[in-house]
């Protein structure tokens, strides 16, 4: 079954992804899936489902992070908003490996000192 969404700029969906079509490049999703260890054959319909799920995921992550953002007074989304959401939200826990919370150098040094003090207590 030939789909037109094989390239990013050829998608039929000109408007919203909440409409019943897919705007992510399906071929790219397939490539990424196949780079997972042990994954062999993927049914075309399964590929569509995964692609759409990925779209929903991106939007879900963005919206959750935004609603949860540190700076409620501004309309902006920062890296740490995303990182915090990953940490605090069970669904997004799997992201914590690739989403290390950026830590201020000062805080890091402080926590190091704290560790040293703890050690000293032994």
């Amino acid at each position: 079954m030939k789909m037109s969404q094989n390239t990013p700029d050829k998608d039929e969906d000109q408007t919203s992804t909440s409409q019943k079509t897919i705007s992510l490049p399906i071929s790219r999703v397939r490539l990424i899936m196949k780079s997972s260890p042990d994954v062999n054959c993927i049914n075309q319909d399964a590929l569509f489902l995964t692609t759409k799920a990925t779209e929903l995921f991106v939007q879900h992550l963005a919206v959750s992070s935004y609603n949860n953002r540190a700076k409620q007074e501004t309309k902006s989304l920062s890296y740490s908003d995303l990182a915090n959401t990953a940490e605090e939200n069970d669904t997004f826990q799997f992201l914590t490996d690739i989403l290390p919370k950026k830590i201020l150098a000062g805080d890091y040094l402080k926590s190091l000192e704290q560790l040293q003090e703890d050690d000293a207590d032994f």
Partner: protein
Amino acid sequence: MASSSGNDDDLTIPRAAINKMIKEVLPNVRVANDARELVVNCCTEFIHLISSEANEICNKSDKKTISPEHVINALESLGFASYITEVKDVLQECKTVALKRRKASSRLENLGIPEEELLRQQQELFAKARQQQAELAQQEWLQMQQAAQQAQMAAASASASQQAGSSQDEDDEEDM
């Protein structure tokens, strides 16, 4: 933006696609560049997550190919059950669209005309072409003949002054 080194791990969804999706759900929101980059990577991570889970489910079943069912079960077990209704709808829509497109292209090829009629039209066209070809050939032949006659007449009148007896032969030739 896949890496040219061909390293599988560098495969990601194109940034433009991600930006577009973010813009749709968070219009007028300023999103930091490093945040966008992060979302791109989260995407890849998510795909791996679903693939691995679906693959495991697939292995447990007696199938060799990851099916839609496997993906749906994976979404469920990973806490993304809320996506299931919408992804199912989209699948249905994709199939419908593909079906319509197949029907439309075959309709275009036929122009709604049944095959016998198309054949008949084809025969007509061939016949017409043959006729035109024949008429053309005949015209050319006539022209050639006229040209040949004129050439002969010119030659004859040139030699008529030399040979008085050859006019009898010319008359015979003109009757042809």
